[in-house]
């Protein structure tokens, strides 16, 4: 499916619905290794995204930036800052673009990854959403079309979630658990994979 300015808004509305459908799972994942508020935080953020997407600003980058601002202002916590940054910083990749291409999508993920890394001050392996985002960015690179790029990203993100189970958290609320965080997936990584999975599904039509 071709994703133009209107499509971008529809896609992010679909992303929002996908996240909202999984709020309880996110809560439970955060209860296991964090403070149990990731689900309700993402709900606040993505309910706001849903609303904004009903009357989105112009430009694909505008759509993404608006989503990012909605997340940033309503989510709170670590998730608000990192998922907000994914969209606000990633939005620049779509500047002046008429549609979302595989290259644009790949550039979006790369920009998002860089922004999260700078903001959160951690690298891959710290058991964060970056462990879903970074492999997704690598997997999308070089894909032939948007469908392939989003599919590869979503798949890599899901594998990233799996991989976080083996990691020891070194940032966020889960850090205190040390080795006891092993065996549990990172809540933010789950969110990242839900977001990318919903993008893939939207693009697949």
């Amino acid at each position: 499916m071709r994703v133009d300015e209107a499509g971008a808004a529809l896609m992010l509305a679909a992303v929002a619905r996908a996240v909202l459908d999984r709020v309880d799972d996110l809560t439970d994942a955060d209860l296991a290794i964090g403070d149990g508020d990731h689900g309700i935080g993402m709900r606040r953020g993505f309910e706001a995204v849903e609303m904004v997407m009903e009357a989105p600003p112009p430009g694909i980058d505008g759509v993404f930036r608006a989503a990012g601002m909605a997340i940033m202002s309503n989510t709170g916590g670590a998730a608000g800052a990192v998922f907000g940054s994914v969209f606000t910083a990633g939005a620049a990749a779509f500047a002046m673009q008429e549609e979302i291409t595989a290259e644009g999508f790949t550039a979006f993920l790369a920009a998002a990854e860089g922004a999260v890394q700078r903001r959160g001050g951690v690298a891959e392996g710290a058991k964060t959403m970056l462990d879903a985002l970074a492999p997704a960015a690598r997997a999308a690179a070089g894909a032939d079309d948007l469908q392939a790029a989003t599919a590869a990203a979503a798949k890599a993100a899901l594998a990233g979630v799996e991989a976080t189970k083996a990691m020891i958290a070194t940032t966020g609320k889960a850090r205190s658990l040390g080795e006891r965080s092993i065996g549990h997936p990172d809540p933010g990584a789950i969110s990242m994979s839900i977001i990318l999975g919903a993008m893939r599904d939207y693009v697949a039509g």
Partner: protein
Amino acid sequence: MAKPIKKILNDPRRAVHEMLDGLVLASDGRTRRLPGVDAIVKAEIPEGKVALLIGGGSGHEPLFHGFIGENMGDGAACGQFFAAPAPHIVYEAAKAVHRGKGVLFLYGNYAGDNMNFDIGAEMLADEGIEVRTLRVTDDVAAAPPERMHDRRGIAGDLLMIRVAGAAAAHLGSLDEVERVAKKAMAGLRSMGVAVLAGSIPETGKLTFELADDEIEIGMGAHGEAGISRQKLGTADEITDQMMEKILADLPFRKGDEVALLINNLGATTMMEMLVVNRRIRQILADRGITVHRSDVGTWVTSQEMAGLSISLMRLDAELKHYLDMPSRSVGYSSLEAK
């Protein structure tokens, strides 16, 4: 867990908003709320004053918004339960309290708070407002001393807000306020013990599980893992274990003068805190450490979590001077000379 969460609330999703309205009303004119933003600021802040902005997730009442007042915070940026405030709240609150001399951000060291306050600080920097940041890292259970930047901020927040609040009210420059606050932070150590779990109103779920005869030494303010899950034991045993760890960390030494804070994590009785205080005083006396002043009360909570924390701050003449100033706020000391 089977225990139902019974709270006197309306819509849990509106609880933070309603709570902040209730707080401003309880302040009897001494604070106000920023329109449309979850931030509380002092009603009157003199021109030319260094501003102190505190804040963080809600659910730890009376921290933070209950600590806005004389010789305490000028403003509080308030997040939802257990969630750092969004950057625009930080930004708006800082703008509202800034009086031309810069703003000290003082908050607990959590990834979410760090990121959101940093974004707020960058927005303020763009407008030429100077911001310094001091993160409270008093929880000795969170990480070894060499990883101080990985330590959480817990009940020591109150002592920091009192010292920094008094310094910000009486010193003319951000540099000086920051210097005093940093010195206070350097000598501050805390640790908690949890007996029963608390919950977040909106999820209605307890944030951790403890067996009926278990406690967790060193548990964090959001239910983050501590250093030892163990059988209940006596008050003296628990106190000894906590004091051992706290005293060795700085370390506190013979001849030191300290401020002592015993903090209720929520549902613990004052009786328990006083029994613990009795033991703490014996230990400190044995070690030749003097208590300059003490606070025993409910300051930094984790909803209905039961348990308590112990904080010690090493004092010098300057820190005593600021700590002895009368802090007044809804949550600390409601007294205001009328």
